[in-house]
């Protein structure tokens, strides 16, 4: 087994099916299709596969799946992440490794002929939803693909008997991540060869922590995340909410900051609550801001030259915002990032290049859903939460000492270890 590097920081996980297959027996009456409850049951059995051998516990959020840690969707074709589906056959499904937002979510190709495990032969004509779901759940829990023959985390679909037993390679992997369940050897294994529900009653999941108290308007310089960062006119500008900081070319935080963005860039929208990304164009030095699904091109801080929508740049019309934008020092090209994807942007034609988006995996070690990224003194930095990752452009991976706390490095704050952000591998 191979651990991907991320794991959940809790043992009670919730899951829910947000988007069911378009063809279900409930509506079509076709015996080749599954009932809705059968689909839920296959997923429930998949959670039991991992829950029985580890300390993990799973609870279905049937009525509010969008609030679950692991949200399950059936999609077709391009569906907003870096892994478009390809119709029946070949790619079946994918999942995202543990994390916020899309982290932990599982996507299944709606075009596949999904069937209950007992009805499957695991060919492209009758694909076991249970086996595929259990495999994807392995990713959602932090396991990478394994090259051990017969393991569930093997990337290619293999046939398992109707009475499924989690192979030892996978058992060791999940137990190393989340510990061993005390009853591991005593419990019977879940059977998929019956149509009756075999759910074992589980204690209720630990309630979610109460929502954080509302933040004050002005961010705390030494304890905050950043919305966007860029070098503009040789100074570093760091944006958070309605405010920004400036760090001069010598690395000194300028006094009287954070200051309101609108006081400096008065032509940006008056009701501005934050900016998503910003970069200085290499070709003409103009500053490009991204706010929601719009972009704003400014000359200096007094003149607004252009306002447009993201879709006018060739980005998907459904894209609500981008996470980061920067000019990469390696090739001088502009890159845009959103969730699990990124685009290369052609400044000459003001349009994203062909063959994009691509998956964020290309930037090895950089997490999904970054907050911001920028180039400084020839080095690329990525930010998420209160941490930043220094990137090695030549080896295409984050540098060994990453991630590190942002505030001490960029804003001269005391370097106090933050217990909420332990160093990850």
């Amino acid at each position, binding site marked *: 087994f*191979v651990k*991907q590097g991320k794991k959940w920081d809790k043992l009670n996980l919730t899951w829910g099916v947000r988007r069911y297959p378009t063809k279900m027996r409930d509506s079509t009456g076709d015996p080749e299709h599954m009932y809705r409850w059968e689909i839920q049951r296959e997923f429930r059995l998949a959670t039991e596969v991992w829950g029985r051998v580890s300390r993990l516990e799973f609870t279905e959020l049937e009525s509010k799946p969008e609030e679950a840690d692991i949200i399950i969707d059936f999609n077709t074709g391009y569906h907003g992440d870096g*892994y478009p*589906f390809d119709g029946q*056959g*070949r*790619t*079946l*499904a*994918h*999942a995202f490794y543990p994390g916020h937002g899309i982290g932990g979510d599982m996507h299944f190709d709606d075009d*596949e002929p999904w069937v209950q495990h007992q009805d499957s032969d*695991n*060919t*492209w004509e009758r*694909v076991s939803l249970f086996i*595929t779901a259990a*495999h*994807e759940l392995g*990713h959602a829990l932090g396991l*990478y*693909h394994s*090259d051990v*023959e017969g393991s569930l985390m*093997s*990337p*290619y*679909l293999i046939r398992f008997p109707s009475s499924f037993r989690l192979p030892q390679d996978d058992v060791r992997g999940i137990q190393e991540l989340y510990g061993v369940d005390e009853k591991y050897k005593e419990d019977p294994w879940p059977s998929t060869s019956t149509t009756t529900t075999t759910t074992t009653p589980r204690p209720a999941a630990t309630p979610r922590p109460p929502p954080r108290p509302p933040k004050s308007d002005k961010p705390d310089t030494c304890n905050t995340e950043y919305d966007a960062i860029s070098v503009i006119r040789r100074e570093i500008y760091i944006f958070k909410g309605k405010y920004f900081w400036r760090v001069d070319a010598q690395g000194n935080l300028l006094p009287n900051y954070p200051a309101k963005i609108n006081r400096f860039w008065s032509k940006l929208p008056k009701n501005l609550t934050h900016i998503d990304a910003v970069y200085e164009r290499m070709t003409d030095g103009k500053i490009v801001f991204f706010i929601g699904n719009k972009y704003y091109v400014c000359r200096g801080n007094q003149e607004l030259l252009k306002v447009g929508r993201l879709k006018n740049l060739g980005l998907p019309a459904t894209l609500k915002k981008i996470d980061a934008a920067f000019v990469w020092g*390696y*090739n001088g090209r502009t890159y845009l990032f959103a969730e699990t994807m990124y685009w*290369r942007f052609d400044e000459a034609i003001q349009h994203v290049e062909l*063959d994009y988006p*691509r*998956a964020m*995996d*290309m930037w*090895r070690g950089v997490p999904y859903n970054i907050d911001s990224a920028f180039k400084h003194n020839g080095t690329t930095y990525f930010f998420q939460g209160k941490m930043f990752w220094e990137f090695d452009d030549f*080896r*295409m*991976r984050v540098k060994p000492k990453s991630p590190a706390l942002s505030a001490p490095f960029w804003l001269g704050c005391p370097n106090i270890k933050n217990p909420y952000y332990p160093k990850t591998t």
Partner: protein
Amino acid sequence: SGDRDKRDIIDDRVQWYLMQYGYLPASDMETGNLRTERQLREAIKTMQRFGHIPMTGELDAATRRLLRTPRCSLPDVMPGEGNDFRIRVRR
């Protein structure tokens, strides 16, 4: 058959498949490095290892079947690991 095998190896679709699942370093798509036939054969061998078929480095019948086998969308080799062909040796 040798000519056919070579043609298939440089076929964009095969290369795309190898990149898509992490057998060829995806970073090459950004940096534009060219690949050698040896690199492609090594990538095929890695794919064969994950598919549990003989590691011949050739696009043989078993490998062609593997290319059509249903699978997970996620890559098998972590980017930068396994087949890091970007390291060059200075003569």
